[in-house]
């Protein structure tokens, strides 16, 4: 999507920069990040702890804690509306309605003193016409949609298991048919068989309601399962972006290659994993050049001079890596 038709986009983020200004220094969490997402599509944001994935998602709802968070630059256009310059009243109207979020930890994202039904009804009553009765009715419907019997409407979160709680959170997020769903590691806290159930439910519901989704995860397996497109995030910037096929089958960035090499894969039993050496750079002191350079086995002196620009290899696939300025450069994974 080099030059996409802007009006088809549910979300258009350009050159987003977010810093956390703390006493210990400026944490450069997001550094010039772009997302263009079409209606009904699913984008996977994959990256490690501290890569800025969650901060990006929070900024779409303008929920980045301020202070210390400061949005330094960039624009976020959500369904044609400028989120960063929106009055609070309008923001409150779209949160949970046009766009909603599923958090990682279902244990802490529910209110322990309200019944699950009341919590879902609350969202509906806030955003939709009609009385409390109607909201309660619809909340009951939503419970059934996510596979929880309506009879459990009056139970409290502590009476539910982890997987069931996450279903409640999903019901809440989908209650007002959002056009965009932000899912931040929605299944990380769950067991694998329950994770499979929840992912399946999310998939079915997204098809039913046609919502677009940003799936934030560190698990490339989940990406392969649910996403149309992938953005690989490193140190607050997208280092590689493309369709699933682009990124999985013709991997370009050394970091993406490193992620695949580190991952135990049940289909490919190897003798040893190939970890990425070293650690993520300190976000208060990012390198001047490519942020991945200190850990990259392909790094040259050129890489340390300046941040690499986007390089499009086809209409859907780009990479930020200085080495691709050399016409013959290839990473090892592409030899497979």
């Amino acid at each position, binding site marked *: 999507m080099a030059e996409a038709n802007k009006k088809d986009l549910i979300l258009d983020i350009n050159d987003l920069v977010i810093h956390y200004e703390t006493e210990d220094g400026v944490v450069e969490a997001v550094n010039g990040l772009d997302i263009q997402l079409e209606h009904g599509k699913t984008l996977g944001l994959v990256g490690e702890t501290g890569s800025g994935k969650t901060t990006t998602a929070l900024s779409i709802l303008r929920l980045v804690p301020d202070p210390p968070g400061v949005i330094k630059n960039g624009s976020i256009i959500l369904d044609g509306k400028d989120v960063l310059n929106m009055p609070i009243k309008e923001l409150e109207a779209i949160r949970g309605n046009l766009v909603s979020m599923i958090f990682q930890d279902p244990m802490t994202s529910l209110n322990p003193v309200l019944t699950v039904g009341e919590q879902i009804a609350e969202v509906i009553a806030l955003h939709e016409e009609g009385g409390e009765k109607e909201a309660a009715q619809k909340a009951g419907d939503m419970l059934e949609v996510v596979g929880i019997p309506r009879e459990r409407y009056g139970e409290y979160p502590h009476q539910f298991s982890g997987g069931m709680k996450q279903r409640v959170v999903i019901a809440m997020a989908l209650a007002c048919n959002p056009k965009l769903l932000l899912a931040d590691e929605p299944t990380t806290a769950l067991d694998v068989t329950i994770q499979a159930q929840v992912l*399946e439910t999310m998939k079915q519901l997204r098809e039913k309601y046609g919502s677009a989704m940003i799936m934030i995860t*560190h698990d490339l397996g989940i990406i392969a399962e649910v996403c149309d497109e992938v953005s690989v995030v490193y140190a607050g910037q997208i280092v590689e972006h493309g369709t*699933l096929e682009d990124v999985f089958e013709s991997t370009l960035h050394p970091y993406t290659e490193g992620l695949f090499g580190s991952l135990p894969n*049940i289909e490919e*039993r190897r003798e040893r994993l190939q970890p990425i050496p070293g650690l993520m750079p300190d976000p208060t002191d990012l390198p001047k050049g490519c942020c991945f350079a200190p850990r990259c086995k392909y790094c040259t002196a050129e890489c340390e001079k300046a941040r690499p620009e986007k390089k499009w290899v086809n209409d859907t696939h780009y990479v930020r890596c200085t080495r691709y300025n050399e016409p013959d450069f290839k990473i090892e994974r592409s030899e497979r």
Partner: protein
Amino acid sequence: MADTILEVKHLKKYFNTPKGLLHAVDDVNFTLDRGKTLGIVGESGCGKSTTGRSILRLIEPTSGEVIFNGENIVNKNREQMRLLRREMQLIFQDPYASLDPRKTVSEIIGEPLKLQKLVPDKDKRAERVHELMEVVGLADRLVNTYPHELDGGRRQRIGIARALAMEPKLIICDEPVSALDVSIQAQILNLMQDLQEKMGLTYIFITHDLSVVNHFADDIAVMYLGQLIEKAPSVKLFDKPTHPYTQALLSAIPVPSLKKKRERIILKGEISSPINPKPGCRFAVRCPYATDRCRTEEPKLVEIEPSHFVACHLTEGK
């Protein structure tokens, strides 16, 4: 005859709860050869951690035998256990919670040496700590830092160094990498593999992540609600999972590849309560193939082919 380091026989651990008797570990049996790795996998609440801790007697087993190096250790007294624990160590899941925040790296690694009075001399101890740090790949300059100054991967390296300080024979690793990012996870797994080769360690690797043990373990034991339901060499278990739960568990793992897609088996329902379990197979309520017999009669763990054990009525007699 293989050289057996550990044999667990009829291990049980029940907890009294206000709601009834919780069968956390219910008659688990296995043997483990020296220098090998056994992976114990299962979902939260299946009793895998309780099994690990009961073997070390950090939790007292309700009944059963734990035979370590030919000796049943269940009836050993405190002093005997203290000496035995030099040979059997534990690495914890959460590198954030398992290190004393008020101690420096060198104090943490040196503490077992001090407690076990192995190296009473202070200078010699510092030397040994230095060696251990080198073994696990911790830079020398970190010797006086505190855990909060370090990232998760380095903290887990401290946990490993501390466990290695005693020169143990058996290390029980309880989810040692699940709190870490993938790139760091791979570093730690490789380190553990190197140490095993170098020192001839035996591991019990407890995890919920089947793809991790596939790499690591020689044998895999799958647990469900306190019971061991399938045990086989890793390659066999992945190629030919036989228990319906193992099949579902394997199929539920998201595979980071577009080419090889497994048929997904989505289980209905969730793990049932381990409190006063009903008779019959504990997986029967979720099992797509359950028959009346499964609901009434508990299946026994049977060797269906050499070194492949399954507890399921459907595979009996095959």
